[in-house]
């Protein structure tokens, strides 16, 4: 596991000079997050694996171009991931629709099985609706809920101000709520 005490700037400097171990450190630190992002954007394990590998391959080939201009390394990685996922969707849309069967549906422990089943169906429906959102809004929701990022951090990745992210988030919630209107998912608080 990567040591949190190690200064990232030093590791980045060494990695940009071709040091394998330093890049390995960065890989270990960010692979989970990038995988999560790509996984939720693509909806299947196989493509998520392939795209995650390509994100790091591209990062490794271009790390000498990365200069810290107030943008964290993670934001740079997410941008690479965002571009690769966008290309993947473009290629994919020419051929077929994205399968949603692989999307994980997690159930809370201790719930009654019937309740679990309903909850899973609700989560599936919600995931389907999220997939229909514009890519930018999907990214926003993934970064907010899966990665637990603040609006400011999301803004750095998306190249928007904190206020713009907040506003986009609110509009996304409203759009989702409107789309959910006629669906099975109940928004009543339990």
């Amino acid at each position, binding site marked *: 596991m990567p040591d949190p005490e190690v200064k990232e700037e030093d590791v980045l400097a060494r990695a940009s000079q071709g040091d394998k171990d330093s890049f390995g450190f960065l890989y270990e630190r960010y*692979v989970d997050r990038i995988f999560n992002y790509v996984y939720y954007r693509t909806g299947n394990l196989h493509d998520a*694996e392939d795209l995650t*590998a390509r994100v790091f391959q591209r990062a490794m080939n271009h790390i000498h171009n990365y200069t810290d201009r107030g943008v964290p390394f993670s934001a740079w990685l997410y941008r690479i991931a965002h571009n690769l996922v966008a290309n993947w969707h473009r290629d994919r849309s020419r051929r077929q629709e994205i399968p949603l069967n692989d999307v994980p549906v997690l159930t809370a422990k201790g719930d009654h099985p019937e309740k679990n089943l309903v909850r899973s169906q609700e989560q599936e429906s919600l995931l389907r609706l999220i997939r229909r959102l514009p890519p930018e809004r999907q990214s926003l929701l993934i970064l907010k*809920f*899966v990665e637990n990022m603040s609006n400011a951090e999301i803004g750095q990745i998306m190249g928007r101000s904190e206020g713009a992210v907040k506003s986009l988030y609110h509009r996304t919630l409203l759009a989702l709520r409107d789309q959910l209107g006629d669906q099975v998912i109940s928004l009543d608080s339990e």
Partner: protein
Amino acid sequence: MDKIENISENNEELDALEAHLAGTLRPVKPSRDLIVRLRGRLRMPQRSEIIIRLRDWRSLFLAFGGVMSALLVLITVARALYYLFGRREG
């Protein structure tokens, strides 16, 4: 009064939607196998490969310089011949 009720209803709906989103979009932990496998797919260029690439650039530069010099010599000779024979004919 109705307006206030609508706003609070809206807020409650959005809060519930956020709770649903939080329950649905949960982090997925990739297996250690997957992480190792992905790492195996990464190919860091060896130092020797970088040197070879740089050498390639150097030789390419030399070849380009050589071709340009040869062209310059050819043009100069051609001009000299043209002036030499051109004048005689004129």
